[in-house]
């Protein structure tokens, strides 16, 4: 079943790329059908998921490169479950809801390939397979930004590619070193995460070096300040669909990787390094928010808000308490939904007005109240107003981090003030006031857009009001992780 989550989009990407040339009218249909099919598989997985188990479920294990102890090893647990579902959900929405404007066939093919890669990253239980997926994602994203982006798109795409690749370059060395150093304890050369977690023991120094090599890769992906500067450029120049996916799921590969691999494999080193990560996370929260406040480009602002939000996730991840980690995981999903939705809305603005300059926009609420209302809900979710999804994760992260990282948490909490500041200020400048001539013709939300956004709003409200189904399913896995880290 999990294999289908990767292979269906991958194969349809090929189909779209190859068949689409002959039958261009089919490309969109194929893309939509396959992404929806992937979603269906994900939903079925969600339905059959055993909420009581901490173990990996639906495990798929096939030999791939037996010579190197590498296998096609997939599985899902409470930590990855909702990230997989989120991925499966965002892609069809983006494919249906966002118009690439040109070269649709290639765009869709890259999108589907991207989906396969992201899925693979979240599902892999084999270090090598994970690295492959983690890296392969760069290619479609690179083309999406470079091919369908705005302005300085090639600079942004290149920066994204090189920066992220630079981060993960040393991770490959780290992965191999992990496997080699664990060879004797495990009894074989294997890249299997469960095997390594079960048996591998590293000396303190080894563990810390290896942790560093993993953590650097993920820190770039997250991104943690001061490794974040690829993000505003990539987000700003990416096409709307690319931004949504980038913010929605790609960044989560970093935080997920930290949790699953860096912490999961090297708990001692993670505890040792946690003050550094607390500091970087908190700096990210405040710094990202301040930088967001001063942006003139709406998309850039949202991009910097991601830096701040991801800071919360990292804080929670390294606090290593049940609440904080659960909060971090749920916040990964929430941020994907809220920021994804924000990017969609900004994309709609940009499609209508051909600018994202805050100064060029005025009084949109006057001419497009429904649009503004939707924006408000999403914005409030991003600010972290209780009752909406953003709050649940943020609150859990903070309350869980307060114990192990008291003063960092206090500073992080001030981030909520800043979040309100930059978003409301931007909202005020864009939506409030009398619309001027240029903005008077701003079109109200169409039915298609409304349907698209209503999915997001529904998730935002549902998660905020009743997060228990999600929390219940992640609990065993989070507890197991905490127990492992505490015991190690």
């Amino acid at each position, binding site marked *: 079943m999990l294999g289908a989550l990767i292979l269906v989009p991958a194969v349809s990407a090929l189909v779209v790329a190859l068949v689409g040339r002959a039958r261009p009218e089919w490309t969109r249909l194929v893309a939509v059908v396959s992404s929806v099919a992937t979603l269906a598989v994900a939903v079925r997985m969600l339905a059959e998921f055993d909420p009581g188990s901490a173990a990996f479920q639906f495990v798929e294990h096939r030999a*791939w*490169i*037996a*010579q*190197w102890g590498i296998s096609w090893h997939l599985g899902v647990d409470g930590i990855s479950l909702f990230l997989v579902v989120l991925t499966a959900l965002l892609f069809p929405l983006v494919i249906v809801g966002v118009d690439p404007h040109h070269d649709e066939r290639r765009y869709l093919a890259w999108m589907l390939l991207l989906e396969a890669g992201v899925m693979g990253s979240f599902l892999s239980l084999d270090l*090598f397979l994970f*690295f*492959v*997926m983690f*890296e*392969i994602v*760069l*290619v479609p994203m*690179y*083309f999406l930004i*470079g*091919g369908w982006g705005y302005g300085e*798109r*090639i600079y942004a*795409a*290149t920066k994204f*590619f*090189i920066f992220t*690749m*630079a981060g993960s*370059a*040393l991770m*490959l*060395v780290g992965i*191999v*070193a992990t496997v*080699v150093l664990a060879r004797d304890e495990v009894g074989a050369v294997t890249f299997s995460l469960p095997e390594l977690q079960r048996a591998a023991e590293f000396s303190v120094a080894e563990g810390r*070096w290896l942790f560093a090599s993993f953590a650097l890769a993920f820190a770039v992906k997250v991104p943690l300040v001061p490794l974040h500067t690829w993000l505003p450029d990539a987000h700003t120049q990416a096409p709307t669909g690319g931004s949504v996916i980038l913010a929605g799921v790609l960044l989560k590969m970093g935080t997920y990787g930290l949790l699953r691999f860096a912490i999961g494999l090297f708990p001692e080193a993670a505890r040792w390094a946690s003050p550094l990560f607390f500091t970087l996370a908190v700096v990210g929260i405040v710094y990202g928010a301040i930088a967001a406040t001063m942006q003139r480009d709406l998309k850039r602002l949202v991009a910097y808000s991601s830096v701040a939000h991801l800071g919360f996730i990292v804080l929670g991840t390294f606090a290593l308490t049940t609440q904080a980690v659960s909060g971090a995981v749920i916040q990964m999903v929430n941020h994907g939904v809220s920021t994804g939705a924000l990017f969609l809305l900004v994309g709609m603005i940009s499609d209508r007005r051909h600018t994202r300059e805050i100064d060029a926009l005025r009084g949109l609420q006057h001419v497009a109240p429904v649009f503004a209302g939707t924006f408000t809900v999403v914005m409030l979710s991003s600010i972290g107003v209780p009752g909406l999804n953003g709050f649940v994760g943020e609150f859990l992260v903070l309350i869980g981090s307060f114990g192990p990282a008291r003063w960092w948490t206090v500073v992080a909490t001030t981030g909520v003030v800043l979040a309100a500041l930059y978003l409301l200020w931007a909202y005020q400048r864009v939506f409030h006031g009398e619309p001027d001539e240029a903005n008077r013709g701003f079109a109200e939300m169409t039915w298609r857009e409304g349907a698209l956004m209503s999915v997001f709003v529904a998730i935002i409200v549902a998660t905020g009001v009743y997060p228990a189904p999600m929390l219940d399913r992640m609990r065993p896995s989070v507890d197991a992780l905490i127990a492992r880290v505490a015991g190690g």
Partner: protein
Amino acid sequence: MDVGTFAAPAVQWWALSPLLALAGTALAILVVGALTPPWRAGLLPLATATGAGAAATLAALQWTTAVASPTTLVGGALAWDPYAVLVTVLVSGSVVLGSLALSDWLWRERAETPEAHALLLTAAIGAIVMANATDLVVTFLGLETLSLSLYVLAAMNRRRTESQEAGLKYFILGGVASAFFLYGVALTYGVAGTTRLGAISGELGMSIGVPRNDVLLLVGVAMVLVGLAFKASLVPFHSWAPDVYHGAPTPITGFMASAGKAAAVATLVRVMLVAYPSRADDWRPVLWAVGALTLLGGAVLAIVQVDVKRMLAYSSIGHAGFMLVGLEAAGHRGAFAEDAGAAAVAGYLAIYALLVLGTFAAVALVVGEGDAATTVDVFQGLGRRSPWLASALTVLLLAQAGVPLTSGFVAKFGVVRAAVDAGSYWLAGVAMLSAVVAAYLYLRLVVAMWLRDAAGPAVAVPPASRVVLVVCVAATLGIGIVPGWFLDLLADVASFAS
């Protein structure tokens, strides 16, 4: 004088059959080509490819025998072990693909001639002899055969002064490097009393702990190393490579980067591991430093180029650095590391040969008549003009950048794994960082092809080049996605007869 006691060494004809096939084809082409009226188009490359293909097949057929019983040929002058078989197949295969690419180039440049194909074949003979020789004198002769063929091939396009400039530069510097190599052979000979690799190792093995002859020997090792490093274009012995790659006819550049580089690196591996393993502690740090310099130098210099062929030349230098990472790993004592390192280098050679042949075949088509327009700009909009060609080139470039699910990643992973296994973390780290820098250069080409629009005619892809591209791309993806069979081959490759 008693001359009657001479016993000629036994000749293993079956094992030599690949070389004979190559030589026979070369001579046949020359003789028939000189005596008959002009051939029909395509027959020359077809004959060359057939001959080289036969050589490759003959070698491949002997794989299992070589694995089972690595041996030496003709009184111990040539090795016939898995490594040798691999190099033979690899070089002969490069000739097959190279001659196909070359035939399209020759047609376009209106320069068809049997000599060019014959020189490809002799170069292959030189490469194979050089890499498989178990006697340093034979190595030297193989090296010269390869080099002389390549000098001429590089200078072949007489309509273009750059081609001749490349040939002359290559020639003069190559002569100096040969002299260095030969001096090293002489000094080794002086200490060991023999030029047979195995015997050298034996002599030196006996003299371990007897440091008295170390200076002469070590300087000998150094000079052998310098000579081979030059051929493999390692920094700082690389300076000829960009100019020659740039100036030479594009398919020849591909051949030099594949067969030429493979032979040089394979020779380095064999000489270092078979003749001088006892001095590994002395030469390994040098390989470390040269490897790091090569990796970084290749990458850093590549990204500032505007000419695609130069760019790829520097990238080829960087790839040689990756190969050195594997060799450095093999230089660590410990059976596992040695096997992994040598095998990783072999894998890298094979994979890179396919990548670079395909890449230059594609580049040869794009740069147009006279190899004139070789700047990055020429590639703009290729994705729209010739999507298939651009797609193939993109796959090959991304593979060179080491993107997963391509053979390039398997190659890089192999050497990094060997290095880590041997404890060379830092060199592995430098290698990965240089790969990041180098990625920028491949991206520049990709950007030009796909993300920038420029009007222009579609680039025609003649059948021969099409075959080359299909084979290279298929191998790239095949090895990249399902590397198991390839690694199975490599598992047996690291055994050397002496």
